[in-house]
């Protein structure tokens, strides 16, 4: 059975196509202003990569902040369910998930079978999410993808105290003024965001073997500090941003969203 999972994130839209739970193809593209359009495009590309056409898909599940904007008929599921599903598929037996996306940070605690025990979502403040990092990257004039690497080359510990992403930005600017090395600032930023995430994880007593997913999981600098702070074993799978979409496609395989 061919199934599709669509994860419409606030920044990135992800599509995963599975055949009998085996990956056929996936696509990540920007969500932009028009989510509907973005989904269509991502879907077309994924279909093309897989060499099939839309009518071959038997079942569809969509998730993510923009799941209601998906233009195809599909079942909907929350990110918590899809994340857990996707994670326990590729890393069975883990104790939990940390999903850091653009505007969201979710922590999920689950048991060996992948049942959700507890979870916590971030509140309305943007600090502790991808957008915060993106803004900092901009202030420091580095690419978001490079931030992590650079922060690992830091030589001293400095503290970024503002939790508000907007104020943190000016704090960072003032550090640049004081000629604090970029790498050290980056490390400070990562530390501040990691402690925020750590606090969220603490709220549900998350520990043990954890998978980090979402776009930000690719940021090695953050992962390193997070590991240090949490004292947990953190696993970052390949292409961590598509796990939500993968989970959705797996759910579709379980009979949700059949056409």
């Amino acid at each position: 059975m061919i199934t599709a999972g669509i994860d419409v994130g606030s920044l990135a839209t992800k599509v995963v196509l599975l055949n009998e739970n085996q990956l056929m193809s996936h696509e990540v593209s920007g969500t932009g202003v028009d989510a509907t359009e973005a989904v269509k495009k991502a879907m077309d590309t994924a279909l093309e990569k897989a060499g099939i056409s839309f009518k071959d898909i038997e079942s569809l599940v969509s998730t993510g902040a923009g799941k209601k904007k998906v233009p195809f008929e599909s079942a909907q599921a929350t990110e918590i369910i899809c994340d857990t599903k996707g994670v326990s598929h590729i890393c069975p037996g883990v104790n939990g998930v940390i999903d850091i996306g653009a505007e969201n940070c979710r922590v999920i605690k689950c048991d060996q079978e992948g049942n959700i025990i507890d979870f916590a979502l971030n509140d309305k403040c943007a600090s502790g999410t991808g957008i915060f990092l993106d803004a900092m990257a901009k202030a420091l004039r580095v690419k978001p993808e490079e931030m992590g690497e650079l922060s690992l080359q830091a030589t001293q510990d400095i503290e970024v105290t503002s939790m508000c992403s907007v104020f943190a930005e000016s704090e960072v600017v003032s550090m640049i003024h004081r000629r604090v090395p970029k790498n050290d600032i980056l490390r400070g930023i990562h530390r501040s965001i990691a402690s925020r995430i750590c606090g969220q994880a603490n709220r549900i007593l998350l520990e043990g073997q954890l998978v980090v997913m979402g776009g930000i999981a690719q940021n090695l600098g953050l992962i390193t500090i997070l590991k240090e702070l949490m004292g947990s074993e953190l696993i970052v799978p390949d292409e961590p941003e598509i796990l939500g979409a993968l989970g959705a496609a797996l759910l579709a395989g379980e009979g949700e969203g059949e056409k």
Partner: protein
Amino acid sequence: MTTKVTTPGEKSLETTAEISKAIKAYYGGVKVAKEEGKPIIWSYGLTPREIFHAMDAHVIYLEHLPLMVGAKQLSGHYIQVAEEEGFSRDVCAFHRCFLGCAVASERDPYLDQFFVDPDFIIATNLPCMSESKSFLYAADHHNVPYYFIDAPINTWGKDIPDYAIEYYAGQLKGTLDFMSEHGLGTVDWDKLKEAVSLSKKLILLWNEIDKCRQAVPTPMGTVDGLTAAYPLIQLPGTQLGVTLFERLLKELKGKVERGEGVLDDEKLRLLWFGVPPFYNMGLLNYVEKYGAVVVKSMIEYIAGGAYDPSIMDPDKPLESLAYKALVDIVNPISENMVNFIRETVKDFHIDGVIGVVKRSCGLLPGYMRPVKDAVYEDSGVPTTIFDLDGLDIREYDDATSKANLDSFIEALLASKRR
């Protein structure tokens, strides 16, 4: 836009509609009393209503007014007024809202229907100690006398020592004297005894009502329950309260017999722990799309709702009321609250607990974790905890709240399916 997404809760019972009318009538009465020159009291917390009713006092309750204002979506405005007075966003939204109403130079016509300035104020530190200070501000602002009832915290469990009862009962006597001094006549002890006996009756009825709610499907959920709790909280010691509860009990019994529920096909039964969003009670109906019902909320049980009234003795009115207040589940440092929730989860076949904290509440944040752990340990029932302010609509984020509810319910359903 926040305002668009809020909806009032949909009630399903006839008696609760009646109770709503009684609430309006009560506050309408306060306004009339003021016009007739009778003294008006502002009060708050678990100050015993029985003595107010026995004295025929007209009282505006701090926690009730914001609810009414909140339901009309006006709370945000008055909260802002209080903040402009210099109150931090971190203190209780109920108190901020009330203070906002108290000091506003212009009042909304809706508010004007029942909100009047006080002639004196009676405050207490039960349930939350720190917030009681807000009344000092109000007393200062309106330049009116102020009486403070100090409730010792319950470090004793169910066995309150005599000296604590004596201390609290003594202050109730002080309250009565204070009211007399300020123009409410002397206390009629027979009337007070009658009030205590009516109060006892009322709680017994509530306990029976509560039993009905254990039925599957439940005949009354929290959307109705919060209104239904009004007589319990505000009318103990009156015949009206008893009559309303008799009617409610009858209606519920009929429903249970006929097997009618809020939802006929209940898939999940939930318990709401914390203050629900009074400006958007529709959120409690929201879960119905999953076949879930919020059966009960903790709020309905403060002020004696979880209380065994057998110990009340009308011949010792003040001592009975002292005991009732001191063992209340919201009197901190006691197992009472944790045990109450623990039992409720079992007795009401609860599948999941929704714990909401508002950042401005002094009392509830400290309960969340112990309750969650106790319930999970006992029954394996999970609790989700998220931020939601029951009153400050400016802090409300519909998408986040729903995302939390969606995720929690989906997870519950998924584990049920297994």
